[in-house]
């Protein structure tokens, strides 16, 4: 009965809507609602879709339940739902324009996306200290991918639905991408050219620090961090391409432009799929600017190569 399509879909929607809640509270809310449905359908025929629809209708939409959860967390003024009474004004206020406070914080899945620029390109010259950081970054990235995958599988086992599978895919992709790079380079990225600290290498080192910050709990910062780092990466690469020569790709399968674009697309997809549409919309203008810069750089490089 509890496994009916309607109930499964409802719980999946609730899990997706609740993606930004703290993990323990999210799991508890899902468990409460699951238990409610089971109790409400106790005694109903297994294929009684009318009964299921009635129960789900009385429960209210997943969005309403999660909104009440955020209200109870103190994100907006608590709303007491009393039929027939006008809703409190606080519940109708539009979300603030600030990225940090616009709705629920981004889910943990956003953090790993900031590691996409870690995928190195031999076309980029780096100073020796940055190369050391880079090599550690590969190992750390693979470890993070493993941890994210395990956490994702745990979330899947707890019945948290599509978002949980997304986390598994993200963690797996990190392990495969960074692992392949590890094998290709033998665990060591060789600097082709000693150069003073560039914006690019600074951005790469920043990524490692910022990913750590985002995964440690400053989750809303992760999306902003990704934008800042990608912007630095893009600007640095564009500047170097304009100077000529040093960023010409030679036999590289990966490029900072491709990694940056992939991070943007995947990051935005995760935000939208997990219900953080407001945050995604707020991030669209700066991310679009970065994407344009990256595409411009790619065109310049292609022309130079030709």
């Amino acid at each position: 009965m509890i496994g009916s399509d309607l109930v499964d879909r409802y719980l999946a929607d609730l899990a997706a809507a609740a993606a930004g809640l703290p993990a323990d509270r999210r799991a508890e809310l899902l468990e409460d609602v699951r238990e409610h449905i089971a109790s409400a359908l106790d005694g109903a025929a297994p294929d009684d879709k009318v009964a299921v629809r009635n129960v789900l209708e009385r429960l209210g939409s997943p969005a309403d339940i999660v909104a009440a959860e955020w209200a109870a967390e103190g994100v907006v003024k608590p709303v007491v739902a009393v039929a027939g009474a006008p809703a409190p004004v606080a519940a109708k206020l539009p979300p603030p324009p600030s990225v940090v406070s616009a709705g629920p914080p981004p889910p943990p899945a956003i953090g790993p996306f900031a590691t996409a620029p870690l995928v190195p390109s031999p076309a980029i010259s780096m100073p020796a200290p940055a190369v050391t950081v880079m090599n550690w970054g590969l190992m750390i990235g693979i470890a993070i991918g493993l941890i994210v995958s395990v956490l994702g599988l745990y979330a899947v086992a707890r019945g948290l639905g599509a978002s949980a599978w997304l986390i598994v895919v993200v963690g797996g992709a990190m392990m495969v991408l960074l692992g392949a790079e590890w094998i290709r380079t033998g665990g060591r990225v060789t600097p082709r050219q000693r150069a003073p600290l560039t914006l690019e290498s600074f951005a790469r080192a920043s990524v490692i620090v910022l990913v750590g910050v985002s995964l440690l709990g400053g989750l809303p910062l992760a999306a902003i961090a990704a934008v800042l780092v990608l912007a630095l990466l893009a600007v640095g690469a564009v500047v170097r391409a304009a100077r000529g020569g040093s960023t010409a790709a030679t036999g590289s399968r990966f490029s900072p432009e491709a990694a940056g674009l992939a991070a943007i697309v995947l990051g935005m997809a995760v935000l939208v799929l997990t219900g953080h549409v407001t945050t995604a919309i707020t991030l669209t203008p700066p991310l679009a600017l970065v994407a344009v810069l990256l595409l411009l750089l790619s065109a310049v490089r292609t022309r130079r190569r030709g």
Partner: protein
Amino acid sequence: VLEHCVLAIVRDEEVYAFELVTRLSEAGGLMTSEGTIYPLLARLRRDGLVETTWRESVTGPPRRYYRITPAGERALAAFMADWTAFRDAVDGLLGNQGGLG
């Protein structure tokens, strides 16, 4: 208002969530959607106004039972005093308006 109605229900006996929702629904007009009770119950737990215990159920998985705490009783008593004064004030005004009309 709703949170104090919850406190009133769990004041005299332990009640599990679905039963609580059923009683609130039967009272009529208190809830627009039953699912929003769970965030409210979580907040009452966090604020220390209710406490919970898990008990086995004969028909399914264990259930979480809610009961009021001393802090919850104080909050409920304060609300009841405020509510009575508020209700009397409104009743008085409505009565006067009715007399004038």
